[in-house]
């Protein structure tokens, strides 16, 4: 029998041993399979894709400009996140309720807001909360921003409504202007310069009245057009039309003009008046809410599926769990041999470091692979997590995650003196993975040098690759997969060198 074949037999001793040892612990196997599945299952049915609502009390100053019903209405506009529980004039009482946990948020309305605004300053709504969770604090700030946005929108809407009401009066002035212009045309045509002069003056009065009123109303429409960048098109901005109108009306009184020139100016003025009339009608027809909030957004995905939050996290959980399983099993493996004393036996026997590691790699790969297959099947067929890609690619990525994680585990195992030390190191890897692998937050939120840690963790690669395959239905990023395997090979080399030292170097 050749040395190679003997080496295979020696490696196989570990393969059988590890598998038997694991199978002798059915509770462990059941926990490894059912534990994550149940966690994901409960998470899937229990997770609500909405943040919690905040019981909110309002503090209104004595000279408040906001009636209680408006406060409630504005809060409802924000959404169900703010639950109105009452208003009070006493800030201390409200803060006391906040500290006692009876309310979640106190919004203090600015006192004498009108004076503050007149002084060219913004009036401030102050939000008090009792949160210590930074995410919740951000959430409260966001809700405050939303609420103030609603209030500002309501103020602007008031302006728009007022402008539309004012536009009714402007119609009257414009009709008079039309009539005066028409009379002036007849006077010019009949050569009655005195009457023409008189109508020109009346027209000028009409135009001045329109100029004063139209600014506020059509200014909003102009702003909208400017925002859209269409002021260079066929339609002139209302302000331009108004300026032209004022200029023409004034020049109609110019006595040096010939009759034809005067008629031409009258035609131009008539057109401007008609334009203004049309614009006012258009302005009046628009809902004031649309005028003050003309844009909204809609998001549409071109991805092949739109997974739920639970689906999205399921694959990260799978990657994290497989990494932790492989790291822990491998980490305990060699340190246990040392503690049991078998390492002494290995040193005397013909076993080499490579044979021992190879046997352990194969056994844990097989065991981890079976666990991964069961978990993946449960995720897809029981929890209905989308699986749009190729199953073989999924298996390849899982194998790479297990392989690389085992390298970490074996390295830990060889440098650990005791079981508890190995478990501690494994827990540190788990903790690092939770924070740095993109499991909780996106990698983009990490400072670039810190991301080095992320790229040393198999979960980082596993999460990205598994999501690509299962949720996007695309082939794995081969560069990323190659980097994961390269990391695994490097760790295997390190483990082998450490193991060789452990087996061959005597004390």
């Amino acid at each position, binding site marked *: 029998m050749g040395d190679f074949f003997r*080496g295979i037999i020696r490696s196989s001793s570990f393969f059988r041993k590890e598998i038997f040892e694991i199978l002798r612990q059915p509770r462990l196997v059941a926990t490894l399979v059912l534990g994550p599945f149940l966690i994901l299952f409960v998470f899937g049915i229990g997770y609500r894709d909405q943040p919690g609502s905040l019981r909110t009390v309002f503090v209104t100053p004595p000279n408040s400009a906001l009636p209680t019903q408006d406060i409630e209405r504005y809060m409802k506009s924000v959404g169900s996140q703010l639950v109105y529980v009452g208003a009070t004039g006493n800030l201390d009482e409200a803060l006391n309720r906040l500290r006692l946990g009876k309310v979640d948020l106190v919004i203090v309305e600015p006192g004498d807001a009108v004076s503050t605004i007149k002084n060219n300053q913004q009036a401030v709504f102050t939000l008090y909360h009792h949160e210590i969770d930074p995410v919740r604090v951000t959430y409260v700030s966001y809700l405050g921003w939303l609420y103030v946005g609603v209030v500002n929108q309501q103020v602007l809407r008031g302006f728009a409504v007022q402008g539309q009401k004012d536009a009714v009066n402007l119609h009257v002035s414009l009709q008079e202007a039309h009539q005066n212009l028409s009379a002036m045309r007849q006077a010019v045509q009949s050569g009655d310069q005195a009457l023409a002069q008189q109508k020109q003056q009346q027209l000028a009065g009409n135009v001045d009245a329109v100029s004063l009123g139209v600014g506020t109303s059509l200014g909003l429409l102009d702003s909208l057009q400017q925002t859209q960048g269409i002021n260079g098109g066929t339609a002139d901005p209302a302000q331009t039309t108004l300026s032209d109108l004022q200029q023409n009306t004034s020049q109609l009184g110019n006595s040096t003009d010939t009759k034809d020139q005067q008629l031409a100016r009258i035609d131009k003025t008539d057109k401007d008046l008609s334009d203004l009339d049309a614009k006012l009608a258009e302005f009046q027809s628009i809902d004031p809410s649309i005028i003050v909030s003309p844009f909204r957004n809609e998001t549409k995905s071109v991805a092949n599926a739109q997974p739920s939050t639970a689906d999205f996290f399921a694959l990260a959980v799978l990657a994290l769990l497989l990494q932790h399983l492989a790291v822990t099993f491998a980490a305990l493996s060699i340190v246990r041999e040392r503690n049991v004393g078998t390492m002494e036996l290995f040193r005397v026997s*013909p076993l080499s470091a490579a044979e021992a590691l190879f046997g352990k790699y194969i056994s844990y790969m097989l065991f981890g692979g079976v666990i991964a297959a069961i978990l993946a099947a449960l995720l897809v067929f029981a929890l209905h997590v989308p699986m749009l890609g190729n199953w073989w690619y999924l298996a390849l990525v899982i194998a790479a995650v297990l392989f690389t994680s085992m390298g970490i585990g074996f390295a830990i195992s060889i440098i650990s003196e005791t079981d508890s030390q190995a478990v501690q190191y494994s827990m540190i890897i788990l903790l690092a993975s939770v924070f740095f692998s993109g499991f909780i937050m996106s990698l983009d939120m990490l400072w670039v040098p810190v991301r080095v840690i992320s790229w040393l963790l198999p979960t980082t690669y596993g999460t990205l690759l598994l999501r690509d395959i299962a949720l996007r239905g695309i082939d794995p990023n081969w560069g990323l997969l190659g980097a994961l395997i390269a990391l695994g090979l490097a760790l295997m080399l390190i483990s082998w060198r450490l193991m060789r030292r452990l087996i061959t170097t005597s004390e």
Partner: protein
Amino acid sequence: MNIPDTNGERNIALASPAAPSQPQPTPVEDSVISARHLTKKFGDEFAVQDVSFDVPRASIFGFIGPSGSGKTTTVRLLTGVYTPTDGDVSVLDRNPANFSQGERARLGYMPQLFVLYPTLTVWENLNFAASLYGMGLFRGKRLAGALKFVELYEHRGKLARNISGGMLRRLSLAATLVHNPQLLFLDEPTAGIDPVLRRKFWDHFRELKDQGRTIFITTQYVSEADNCDLVGVQSNGKLLVVDTPQGIRHRAYGGDMVDFRTTQPFDFQAEAMLRSLPFVRAKTVRTGADSMRIIVDQANSDTAELMGWAQRQNIQVKTVEEYMPPFEDVFVELVRPELSHG
């Protein structure tokens, strides 16, 4: 020096020899193990100090010493688990640190403690050990044979954690023997084994020796030294003596012991004459009214001289026979000076 009486109940004080010095062996031509000035220190503590000996091929070398005397450390030095702090060691003509896989396959090592897996069955543990030595796939018969030898075959399906300490020792021994090694290092293989099975073990060790295998064995059962071809006595990390069991007895008491029994009680005059005989090496000890224990140069030749002297003195001799003191007593005699010096 203490010589035990026949019943082993009473010790009679005799002169103590000086503490034995470290023996320096005469090189053995066909030695399998050769240690020269072997020393191992852990920190400032000597675990093994200046130990030299040879183990001839196809012999049983017993390494005896009290707990903590450095027996296990010596075994680890010989198997390459430890590197010596000083001195040289050669096993199968190689430094154990440089053993090839093939050379390691010729060794069998049974550590002092059970080092297999509690969650595997007896059979699986043995199978694991066999695989470690690269035994072929059709090894079932050999595994069964090893288990039958240590009387564990009936228990082959039991988990190791569910069998007794003695059974674990037997399993360890089976795991050491299963690949049929040429050189065996057995660290206290008979600890916790019942006397009947112990006897069986020693019978098997002798069989292995007869087949040409060499066995280096440590034991705390001093009486087992009689089963060895050579015995090394170790105390406080120092090797006190290496000799045959008979040679060691001789060294311990300064000669061979003979029990001299007469039909009538001894008188003082006769006793004085006996003590003055030239081949009587040390003081005689009266062990009864009609019996004395005498230390002579050589029991074989001096017994006849003793009979002749009795005949000349008209003393009716009932029995004259060599007395083999228990090895426990021999061991105590050897170790005592070392302990008192230490």
